[in-house]
């Protein structure tokens, strides 16, 4: 059978001519990808923020511990009385060695701000007497008291009943030293500054 002129000219049907993407398909793909990628960007941003805050907090804790260690080795009497004009701080940080000072005003101290990376760490300290030295001439109840028991333990109960519970203390020893609480605060711009506190006793005896 002879072919018509139109059938001769028109190209044969080829299935691969539909292999490309239509505009609607591309737009839909972009829309779906956007919906999927946007929370991913948010999550990455949040993760980066958390990681940064964790590093800053860790650094603030290390600085706080370093300052507590400095205060634990400072002259006790001067520290207790707030008689230290300026306490040198030499702290090793990942950015290198930091040299600064802590300036005391009575029981409170503030340190030279430490800048590591983009974060500024502001150090503060407080020295507070929590036990006052006992005074024989004017006794008070704010001294540190250790209990004392009689070395003569109660006899064991008959018929194998075991020993009686320890008796209450029969005396107390009231200490003749002021004893202090050291508190160090490191503010690094986070929601809440780092606060560390410990106790220091007078070991001068």
């Amino acid at each position, binding site marked *: 059978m002879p072919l018509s002129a139109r059938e001769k000219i028109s190209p044969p049907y080829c299935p691969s001519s539909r292999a490309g993407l239509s505009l609607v398909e591309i737009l839909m793909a972009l829309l779906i990808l956007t919906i999927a990628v946007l929370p*991913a960007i948010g999550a990455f941003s949040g*993760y980066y923020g958390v990681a940064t805050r964790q590093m800053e907090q860790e650094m603030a804790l290390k600085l706080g511990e370093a300052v507590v260690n400095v205060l634990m080795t400072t002259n006790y009497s001067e520290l207790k009385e707030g008689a230290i004009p300026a306490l040198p701080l030499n702290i090793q940080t990942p950015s290198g060695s930091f040299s600064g000072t802590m300036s005391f005003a009575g029981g409170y101290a503030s340190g030279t701000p430490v800048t590591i990376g983009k974060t500024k760490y502001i150090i503060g300290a407080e020295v507070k007497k929590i036990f006052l030295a006992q005074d024989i001439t004017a006794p008070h109840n704010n001294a540190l008291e250790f209990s004392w028991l009689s070395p003569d333990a109660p006899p064991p109960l008959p018929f194998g009943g075991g020993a009686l519970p320890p008796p209450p203390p029969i005396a107390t020893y009231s200490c003749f030293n002021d004893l202090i609480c050291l508190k160090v605060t490191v503010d690094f711009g986070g929601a809440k500054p780092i*606060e560390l506190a410990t*106790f220091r006793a007078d070991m001068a005896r």
Partner: protein
Amino acid sequence: MKKMLNPRKGVALAMVMVFCIAILGLVTILVFNTRSHRGSHTYQHDASRALMAATAAMQLAIYKYRVLPSEYYKIHTLETLKNKGTADAAAVNALNTLKTAWMADFQSDNAGSPAAKIKAEIDQSTGGNHSFGVEEFSLVSKAAQGYTRDYLKIRAWGASGDTRKVLEELIEVRISD
């Protein structure tokens, strides 16, 4: 007939959906990781606070020994007798009583003890919840050439939140005869 000859129709969308599911999977993992990191913030803070509490217990223990050494030597003498096997029942009872009383001052959970007052102060200062105490307080001797070295061995612990830290110190002491 044409529809059947178009096998790639919808493949692009299917691939995009697969990519999206993969991305959402990654985001989920990231979110869970971030949450666990938030927990480690608290852990780090608690670890430092626990260390401070253990330091406080250590200071209190050393201070008590410095102001009341003879009280401790009574305990040490009785403990030596017990270890040698020469202590009678009364001596063992006395040892238990004295040791309990000696250690009670260091435990922050004992209401009215010096440690409890220190704990209250530290808690108030930092807004945290600390506890601390001393696990071991003993005198260990080490024989050297011609003399004996004595060390006070103190093992103190501190806790904040779920974190617990232990500090151990050996302090050389000189016992006068």
